[in-house]
């Protein structure tokens, strides 16, 4: 009797879809995060982003000491869409930053770390022992600063040592953010997985340059920067698709998401959550709620109750 009643009701009552997602052990209420490098130096701003719909906030990549970054110009707007930036990983340093987020209660904060040797990562993680940290994200892919980021990610032995050290230092989930360097990113992913990584963020910005035709010189003070935004979305999506096809590892898609359709594409390609940054520059922080709403409407239309229902669906054929 009950069964009959439920099945009849089921056809009338639609289950309200949930935006909650999990990336391995990482549980989030919403699947859209702020990517590293964007807006991340004050807890007040993190709270505001969380209130605006971000499921988590990834901090700027933190180094052992404060870094000033490069002189301006540090950002360039590409005609037709996208940005090239060489901010140069400016950040207040892990010890100062730990103080900034010490009083964090509400916001899921993913602390991004950058360094050259395993010991630096170990020392930095210890700084955050008294902070509410949802996960660590290792920056193995920044394409415009020497001796860190992509130069580390391109060295498989170093990746192995860093991931192993970090995993032995903390019980908090650890994510590796990979990018397009001289070592194939799938090899970097493979080594990170072998070394115990919990999840992968793919991808970082892509090394690029901008030249001004009037003054006939590169515009950015560092000459080279990283291309982000809509131009790299299809590439990032391809990477997520390839990683999820080859490995059984939770993935966070990152690269050029600016609409709910972009976010859904990344889910369908195999990522359980997404990160965005450039779209904040184009649409400001209302973008999080806009994308959340679009995803929910899509889920209602397609009859999905949770994000996981659509993760990897594009690979079914």
């Amino acid at each position, binding site marked *: 009797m009950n069964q009959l009643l439920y099945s009849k009701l089921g056809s009338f009552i639609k289950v309200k879809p949930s935006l909650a997602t999990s990336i391995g052990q990482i549980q989030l209420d919403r699947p859209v995060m702020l990517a590293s*490098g*964007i*807006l*991340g*130096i*004050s807890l*007040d*701003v993190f*709270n*505001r982003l969380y209130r605006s719909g971000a499921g988590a906030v990834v901090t*700027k990549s933190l180094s052992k000491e*404060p*870094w*000033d*970054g490069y*002189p*301006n*110009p*540090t*950002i*360039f*707007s590409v*005609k037709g869409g996208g*940005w090239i*930036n060489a*901010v140069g990983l*400016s*950040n*207040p*340093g892990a010890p*100062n930053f730990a103080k900034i987020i010490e009083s964090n209660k509400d916001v899921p904060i993913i602390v991004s770390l950058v360094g050259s040797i395993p010991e630096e990562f170990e020392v930095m993680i210890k700084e955050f022992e008294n902070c509410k940290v949802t996960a660590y994200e290792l920056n193995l892919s920044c394409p415009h600063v020497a001796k860190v980021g992509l130069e580390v990610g391109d060295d498989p032995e170093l990746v192995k040592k860093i991931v192993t050290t970090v995993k032995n230092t903390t019980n908090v989930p650890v994510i590796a953010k990979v990018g397009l360097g001289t070592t194939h990113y799938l090899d970097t992913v493979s080594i990170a997985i072998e070394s115990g990584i919990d999840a992968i963020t793919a991808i970082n910005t892509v090394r690029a340059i901008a030249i*001004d035709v*009037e*003054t006939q*010189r590169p*515009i950015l*003070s560092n000459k080279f920067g990283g291309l982000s935004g809509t131009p790299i979305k299809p590439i990032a999506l391809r990477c997520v698709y390839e990683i999820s096809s080859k490995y059984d590892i939770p993935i966070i898609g990152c690269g050029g998401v600016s609409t709910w359709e972009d976010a859904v594409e990344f889910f369908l390609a195999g990522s359980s959550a997404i990160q965005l*940054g*450039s779209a*904040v*520059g184009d649409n*400001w*922080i209302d973008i999080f709620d806009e994308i959340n709403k679009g995803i929910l409407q899509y889920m209602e239309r397609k009859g999905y109750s949770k994000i996981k229902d659509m993760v990897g669906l594009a690979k079914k054929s």
Partner: protein
Amino acid sequence: MQRNHNHPTIVTIEKVIDETPTVRTLVFSDEVMSNILPGQFAMVWIPGINELPMSVMISEESGKAAFTVRRHGPASTGLFNVKVGGQIGIRGPYGNSFDIKKGKLLLVGGGTGLVPMMRLLTFVKSTDDVTVLIGAKSKDEVFFEDLTNSLLKNNPHKVIVSTDDGSYGQKGLVTDLVEKLVDETHFDAVYTCGPEIMMYKIVHSAHSRGIFVQASLERMMKCGVGICGSCCVGEDLVCKDGTVFDGQHLFSNKEFGYFHRNKAGVLENY
């Protein structure tokens, strides 16, 4: 092709005016910048040197705009040293602008903070009664006094200059003068731009008396478009939420008047 305001437009400096030994105005032709609103800013690229946020100065000639810059750090000194014929890149306009009220208005500018005040003066109605306070350290650092008078020639107005050392105009801090003025006269609105401690005191003087007050804030900026986060003041981003903030909002911000961030993002006291 339509101009992308995030993309640097290269302009050529046509005229350089020495305002004081340390302040210069660089004039260029650009329709977009000539029409921006008071409080908005541009990111100014000095090729090979740096890029910095600048308020856009008015020009007497239509279709032209200017930057009034004080020689200070490497970026501002780089801009200060651009000669006639030199090329700079500009992107923007960025940011919000002052809410222009009617009636009895008080404008207070310290140093190059006078730039948005001059643009604001081009928006007042001829029926507005306008008082402008110009604060400077000493006589040779006073500028825009004649310009202010000429912009207000059709208005009931008063222009008061104060110098910290008393070498010109009234002696003392411009903030003490504001405190006195808001006690004597009822203003419908107070607008200010200049050093943050100055603005903090002025916002306090006006806000505590229930007078509408707005300040245009300055912070270290890298991107100007709400990506890098360098210009945050508490939860506000000067480039996107400002540069203009209401007094009431500023008083709920724990950092205004107390802290700013350096290039690395480390909080420093004023």
